[in-house]
């Protein structure tokens, strides 16, 4: 079978990028983001990207890198509060922004990957996000129609992966990665640990290899946004 393993993030994106494309990028804040693939995507120089990601990174890291270079035309996100460059570009009209409630965004990605064209949710009924959208009453309650989302490319980050593309995520670094892996026409995954096929427990695999076109072992900074700690009592 065609080899899914690529030597680095740059080669793993070859042929998968083009101007005006849409990209889903996994992660919540800076947790579980595809650090290496974001940098490689920046280095492709591709422009006018629509990025679907819960957050927009921070200044100088994560998707913030793509904002610096003005490669992003539009963001589809639930929260973008950690990024000054984002605010500047948005307020100056350089950047489009579509807010989705976080759960709606997650479900739209799942739906896109699952062949569900639309779904009815209570989330956002009566708010700005429901404006212009169809609503329908089920059992006396009003729901709003949201649509499935797909992207030209998904970039995701997992903890372990095998050569077949099977992925296992770690702790809260799972977040948006599994759904986004299903909703890209192409999906590239970066992992901390790349193992031989057969080393992962089939019951513990979160993302079956069918969703992953290419896989690459990355080097990770794993930056922390809010380092909150408990102080030890004096012994």
């Amino acid at each position: 079978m065609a080899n899914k393993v690529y030597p680095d993030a740059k080669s793993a994106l070859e042929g998968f990028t083009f101007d005006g494309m849409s990209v889903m990028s996994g992660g919540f804040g800076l947790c579980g983001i595809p650090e290496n693939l974001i940098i490689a995507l920046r280095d492709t120089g591709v422009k006018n990207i629509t990025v679907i990601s819960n957050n927009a990174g921070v200044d100088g890291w994560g998707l913030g890198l793509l904002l610096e270079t003005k490669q992003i035309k539009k963001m589809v996100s639930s929260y973008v509060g950690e990024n000054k460059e984002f605010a500047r570009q948005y307020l100056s009209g350089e950047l489009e922004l579509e807010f989705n409630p976080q759960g709606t965004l997650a479900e739209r990605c799942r739906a896109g990957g699952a062949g569900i064209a639309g779904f009815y949710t209570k989330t956002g009924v009566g708010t700005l996000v429901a404006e212009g959208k169809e609503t329908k009453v089920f059992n006396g309650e009003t729901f709003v129609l949201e649509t499935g989302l797909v992207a030209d490319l998904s970039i995701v980050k997992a903890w372990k992966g095998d050569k077949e593309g099977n992925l296992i995520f770690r702790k809260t670094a799972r977040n948006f990665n599994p759904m986004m892996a299903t909703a890209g026409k192409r999906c590239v995954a970066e992992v901390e640990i790349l193992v031989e096929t057969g080393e992962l427990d089939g019951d513990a695999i979160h993302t079956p290899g069918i969703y992953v076109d290419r896989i690459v072992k990355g080097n990770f900074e794993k930056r922390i946004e809010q380092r909150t700690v408990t102080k030890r009592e004096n012994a």
Partner: protein
Amino acid sequence: MAWSRDQLAQRASKELRDGFYVNLGIGIPTLVANYIPDGMEVTLQSENGMLGMGPFPYDEDVDADLINAGKQTITALKKTSYFSSSDSFAMIRGGHIDLSILGAMEVNERGDLANWMVPGKMVKGMGGAMDLVAGVKRVVVVMEHTSKDGASKLLKKCTLPVTGINVVDLVITDLGVFEIDKHGSQPMKLLQLADGVTLEEITAKTEASFVNAL
């Protein structure tokens, strides 16, 4: 006199019940975790994909893969499970979380809530707030009773873009506690006054109409 931030959190903790699964918002709601009564088991959900959230880690235990919805480093417990964002919001939207305690900019007497957007200012986004208020069984708001310029935040109608309509069950402010019949037609009820607050004071500072149920 009025309730302090910690007193607000302590009052909110009285809404907890043994065995509850609870989602706490950022700010004062987070402090509620400090006031879970002894012997009561409450499981905290974090909407980024975790059930069974523990306290902040010791410095040497910080794990970049283990954060809460406020992007703060946290710890796991024995009972902790992890899941994707879609599974997390399935849990929230599906009504499996017993209680959500969160902050607000405005609440109205019908239980509408505004806490995500001030037009004309840079908007950060609603995050998971719209999903939480729409999906969680019981929604408790903890907030200051008035804005910095003294205007009531408990209104007849919200002036800001709302996060949800008919979603709030209870409002705990630094001046008192109000119950809202969000799906019914009962008026909002004043249940409790904060220490040293009079009925006259709270009435004067509340735009929303309410009945005295002290």
